């Protein structure tokens, strides 16, 4: 009886897995069949146009890359610093526990709320306008909880013996963290960062809320430029009535997926490289 239950559960698990994979495969096949024909150098390098066959995606692609790089620059130092404080310096008391619970909850807040916050604080209050920097700051807020949580996880995983070894040589706390703890934690920190950026690069709602949904026919050339990003461009094309634009949207989705895969590949490569260095 127990044995057959075991087999049944195994079969059920396999079935569910195959179902999920089939759904994913169907989506990918559909998008590829719709969009692959539109993918070309002219499409990647071109600018938006009224005619679907001449429209390109360059401003959105450049905007996405620009925004996500800036997001990383903002989220990494702030997130790592916050995690170091919470994990290494902060005392365990009521306040620190309240902060911890808040950060965990922030990771689950709908992204449109971050968009409203970005609109209120960065675009209006701080007068950044609907610029690349305002968008990056908004997405950085969105990425921060995950960066902080994964950094804390990575710091906690550093063996105590390494800290003791460093303290025993007359190192200060900061020297120990900077020279010994952070290098060991780096693979985990980078993985968390890139995973959170992967989420941020696909976000549409917060950027629409803060006003990035405008017709932009040029690539951003400074952090104060107005901009658009891939998901918004895709959204624009999908909402057009002409069928040809839907093919553009599918091609845009393929590009976005390629960008995501590249980022995840980078994460894995970085992690392996650091782990190899550590293991000698």
């Amino acid at each position: 009886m127990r044995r057959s239950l075991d087999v049944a559960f195994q079969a059920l698990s396999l079935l569910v897995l195959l179902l999920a994979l089939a759904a994913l495969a169907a989506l990918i096949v559909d998008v590829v069949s719709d969009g692959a024909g539109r993918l070309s150098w002219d499409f990647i390098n071109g600018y938006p146009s009224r005619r679907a066959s001449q429209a390109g995606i360059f401003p959105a692609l450049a905007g996405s890359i620009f925004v996500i790089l800036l997001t990383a620059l903002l989220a990494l130092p702030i997130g790592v610093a916050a995690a170091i404080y919470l994990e290494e310096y902060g005392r365990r008391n009521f306040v620190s526990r309240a902060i911890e619970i808040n950060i965990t909850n922030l990771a689950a807040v709908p992204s449109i709320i971050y968009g409203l916050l970005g609109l209120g604080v960065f675009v209006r209050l701080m007068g950044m306008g609907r610029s690349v920097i305002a968008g990056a700051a908004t997405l950085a807020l969105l990425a921060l909880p995950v960066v902080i949580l994964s950094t804390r996880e990575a710091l906690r995983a550093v063996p105590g013996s390494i800290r003791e070894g460093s303290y025993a040589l007359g190192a200060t706390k900061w020297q120990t963290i900077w020279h010994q703890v952070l290098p060991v934690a780096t693979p985990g920190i980078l993985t968390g960062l890139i995973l959170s950026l992967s989420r941020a690069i696909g976000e549409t709602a917060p950027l629409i809320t803060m006003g990035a949904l405008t017709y932009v026919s040029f690539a951003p050339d400074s952090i104060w430029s107005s901009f658009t990003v891939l998901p918004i461009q895709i959204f624009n094309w999908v909402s057009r009535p002409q069928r040809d634009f839907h093919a553009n949207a599918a091609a845009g989705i393929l590009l976005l997926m390629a960008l995501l895969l590249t980022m995840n590949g980078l994460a894995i490569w970085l992690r392996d490289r650091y782990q190899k260095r550590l293991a000698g």
Partner: protein
Amino acid sequence: MSTASTRPLPGSLGELASRNVAPPPSSSEPCKIEAKHLDFYYGQKRALEDISVQIRPHLVTAFIGPSGCGKSTFLRTINRMNDIIPGTRVDGQVLIDNANIYGPGVDVVQLRRRVGMVFQKSNPFPKSIFENVSYGLRINGMVSSKSELAGQVEESLRQAALWDEVKDRLHESALALSGGQQQRLCIARALAVRPDILLMDEPASALDPIATQRIEELAYDLKKKYTVVIVTHNMQQAARVSDYTAFFWLGRLVEYDRTDKIFTNPTEKLTEDYVTGRFG
């Protein structure tokens, strides 16, 4: 590993406490480290009780006793390594060169540079052999040029009897070394910052007999330049390397005397039972 409660024990704690425990061998001899009525607590639990001992310079002093008797805890009070464990507390004094290291205004970081430590499980940093040894020199600002640094690293590795084995691969990972080599690297790393005291917490307990012998020879040689304190489970080891031996039992110092006296003609019945292997 048997504890006090699992076997009938010769002597009792009450009997012990009533005696004047462990007179220093001769109070007129020079003294490097002195504990005065030292109590140590992990939270509410008292791990050390009224420890008073005088440790001689340029000799090897061994701490022996069954697991959980407080010998490692006491060792770690000498460089205040227990400070990094939350909820610990010290009463009484530890004097190094007649200055109380638990007094106000003591720089713990500076103290740990003067009192080096080697741990039970070798804990090289996941960096190169060279970086392991140079780390302490760099963070303490002890060298002003690259050639000076290289010279100091070589000297430290020579003192730890490791130079000939690693001189051709200084920039390879320390984790690629064998267990015994890793432990000697940790000794070299501790010697690099020129301490006057070297604490060794069961430095050979995870090593094979040949590697153990090399560590023992090293401990014996190092006393020319350093005051060495070694915690060990292994009674033969204590007999081989040390000049003085302190026997701990249940957080108390039972007897402290010249090693030959402890092993051939101890004053306390409890010590005799332990060194002859009747319990522990």
